[in-house]
């Protein structure tokens, strides 16, 4: 957004300030590959300054509170900034403390997350010497960032332990509060087939109440139990603490904004983008990317006090690693669930929707280069921010 807006807005009229508590920008999709040794720390970490254009002020501090009535942002050191327009892009964070028994004696010994660099590195260390047993991948709460990551994780674990020659000693189970592997029917059917062909169990409708560290078991609210030897978990996801402190969020500190314009319903000069927004779309990088085009147009309209014409359709596009050098691809929006077909060129591809192919896998790997070199610098991509039905097969509906 900063790269787009700096080009469009005159420096004499508009100051652009970014407040970020991190020194580092993380390529978060890469965390998934770290436990299996495909990526190391250096593949996913770059200094944040490198990706900002000139003419922008960067303040590396945490935020304490926003006063949306007076248009003031108070920083952690109690200094403050005023704003005319505020874009909140503070993402989502994991909150292991929200689940009883999660951050206990087994945390980062036999229980790991892969949503932080530390968690992914600790899990890699564990897997290097693990001799096998029950590997459970569990989701505590919805929504969470990158809803297909747990499916990818179990597929990559299957391939990793097969190559290590110990797959027969590893029982892999995916535990989810959702009714199936994914939320949308056709993709769930396809992905369930993939998991079952790899001898990976799914336990659906399991809402974790606590983790029994002594007996190494997950316990649900309706008193079902799942034993584990190593547990990889998606802890509860919440928006930034300052959103809760400012009274701008829902019960998980995500910000309710108009699902098409991304504008706050009450405070018209506040917008939210990416995981920070409470929208009925995936919390995924592709969603933030497509939203950025819409938000850019709407910010320019808001400045001119014009009606916000650009509408986000919920477009999401995700490559799903299925192991052994193959991947599948889903493309969907608020209204249309993932369908089979070709992407982005109808009839040709080269990517195949809802099929596992090696070329989809290459797409996923190429994406890291694309991310650092094209997306962060706001250079254009030949993919529309609106989902297209061209190339999709609807005869299965």
């Amino acid at each position, binding site marked *: 957004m900063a790269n787009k807006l700096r080009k469009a807005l005159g420096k004499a009229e508009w100051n652009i300030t970014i407040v970020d508590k991190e020194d580092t920008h993380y390529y978060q999709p890469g965390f998934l590959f770290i436990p299996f040794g495909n990526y190391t720390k250096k593949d996913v970490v770059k200094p944040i300054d490198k990706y900002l254009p000139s003419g922008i002020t960067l303040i590396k501090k945490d935020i304490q509170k926003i006063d949306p009535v007076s248009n003031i942002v108070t920083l952690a050191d109690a200094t403050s900034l005023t704003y005319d327009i505020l874009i909140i892009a503070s993402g989502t964070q994991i909150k292991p403390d929200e689940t009883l028994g999660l951050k206990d004696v087994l945390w980062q010994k036999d229980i790991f997350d892969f949503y932080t660099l530390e968690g992914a590195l600790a899990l890699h260390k564990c897997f290097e010497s693990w001799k096998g047993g029950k590997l459970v991948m569990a989701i505590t*709460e*919805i*929504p969470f960032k990158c*809803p297909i990551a747990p499916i990818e994780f179990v597929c990559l674990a299957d391939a990793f332990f097969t190559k290590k020659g110990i797959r027969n000693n590893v029982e892999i189970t995916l535990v989810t*509060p*959702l*009714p199936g592997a*994914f*939320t*949308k029917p056709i993709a769930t059917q396809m992905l369930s087939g993939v998991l079952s062909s790899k001898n990976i169990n799914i336990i659906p*409708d399991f*809402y974790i*109440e606590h983790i029994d560290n002594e007996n190494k078991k997950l316990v649900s*609210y*309706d008193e079902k139990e799942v034993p584990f030897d190593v547990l990889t978990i998606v802890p509860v996801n919440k928006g930034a603490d300052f959103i809760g402190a400012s009274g701008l969020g829902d*019960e*998980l500190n995500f910000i309710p904004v108009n699902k098409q314009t991304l504008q706050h319903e009450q405070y018209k000069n506040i917008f939210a983008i990416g995981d920070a927004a*409470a929208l*009925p*779309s*995936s*919390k995924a990088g592709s969603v933030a990317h497509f939203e950025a085009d819409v938000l850019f147009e709407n910010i320019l309209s808001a400045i001119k006090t014009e009606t916000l014409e650009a509408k986000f359709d919920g477009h*999401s596009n995700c490559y799903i690693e299925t192991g052994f050098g193959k991947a599948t691809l889903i493309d*969907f929006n608020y209204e249309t669930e993932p369908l089979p077909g070709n992407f982005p060129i109808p009839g040709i591809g080269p990517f195949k929707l809802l099929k596992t192919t090696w070329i989809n896998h290459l797409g996923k790997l190429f994406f890291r280069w694309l991310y650092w070199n094209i997306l962060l610098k706001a250079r254009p991509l030949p993919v529309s921010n609106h989902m297209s039905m061209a190339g999709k097969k609807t005869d299965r509906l």
Partner: protein
Amino acid sequence: MAEKTIAGATVNVNAEGYFENPAQWTKDMAIEMAKDYNITLTDKHFALLDFLRQKHLGGEQLSIRKVGTSGIVDVKEFYQLFPGGPLKISSKLAGIPKPMSCV
């Protein structure tokens, strides 16, 4: 869209039996539908159904966590009141659409 007769009245439901129009709902319908789940509705059940209907009509997305912070029940009690799939079952009995899981 299909039609179904519940407690003597005809209502519009989808393929999974969720109401298409929450305005068609009555308490007697909830009592009759609850029999399919072997649930006898108490005042606490009805307080929850009201909560769900109000939140739905207010345009809010519902989740088990949100019900757990309603002040009516905690999550464990919610599971005890609607065993099996508390949010799905209670939404059906409240005459509102199936809760949309985040994607």
